[in-house]
């Protein structure tokens, strides 16, 4: 498999973040997807970026402590 990086790839790279953020127009989405269909390199890179986002989210997730939850509830203003 050859890794040819052409103009289409450069444009596809520009569209990657907005594509994953779902902020491209319908026409741009079609354009990106047409390129992804025929370009294995870009497809793999998009898939990687998508996985990276999910991975980062999971890796940094940290639940709040039950003690803090109780403290917040105690901040409520009592009814008179």
């Amino acid at each position, binding site marked *: 498999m050859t890794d040819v990086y052409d103009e289409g790839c450069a444009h596809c790279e520009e569209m990657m973040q907005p594509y994953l953020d779902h902020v491209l127009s319908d026409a741009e989405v079609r354009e990106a997807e047409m390129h992804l269909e025929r370009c294995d390199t870009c497809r793999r890179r998009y898939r990687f970026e998508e996985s*990276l986002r999910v991975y980062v989210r999971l890796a940094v997730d940290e639940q709040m402590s039950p003690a*803090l939850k109780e403290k917040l509830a105690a901040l409520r203003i009592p009814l008179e």
Partner: protein
Amino acid sequence: MERGGTVADVAEDDGTDEELEPHESEAAQRIATEARDRVRFEEEALALADQVYRVARHLSSSREEAEDLVQETYARAFRSWRSFQPGTNLRAWLLRILTNLNIDRGRRTQRAPQMQALEANDYFLYDRLSEDSNGPTDEERIVERLSQDDVVSALSAVPHDFRDVIVLVDLGDFSYQDAANILDIPIGTVMSRLHRGRRILKRELAESVAEGET
């Protein structure tokens, strides 16, 4: 119940100069409605605490700092609940309080590293990780070469201005517009910081991979 006193308090808090209602039943009804609205507000706000904490945790350097920030946020939110407009985004409203408190704490002295070289392209982390053929090679699993610690420390190494946007949009699921409102910056700035911040994050991740190899 000291009804008279309560009505006076309500009138004062509303910032109006209304006289006490001549019909006590109407006054009582107002108090009851307000109490009900407030309880509902507090319950809805508390239901969002996990999400608020998650954002606070990534904006703070320690767990303790995050917990203080969240408590301060809720104390302020409960005090000023009347300024929340029902039907608007409560999560964004709470985070607006949180980010303002965070700025007030003077935490934001770190400057953005404008002079650092910007990475050549968006894919260098992928290129770096996929260079090494020992280990998983499919793109969904290449990320597993990064440890959880790598990710946590890479995110904390991203300068505040950029990290705030990543935390809100990528980890908090806020839209660009919500993030702009919360941080009080133009939407274009949200987009450029997000773009730049993600690259910085990837550069930090790539560096942690390089350090792991040496």
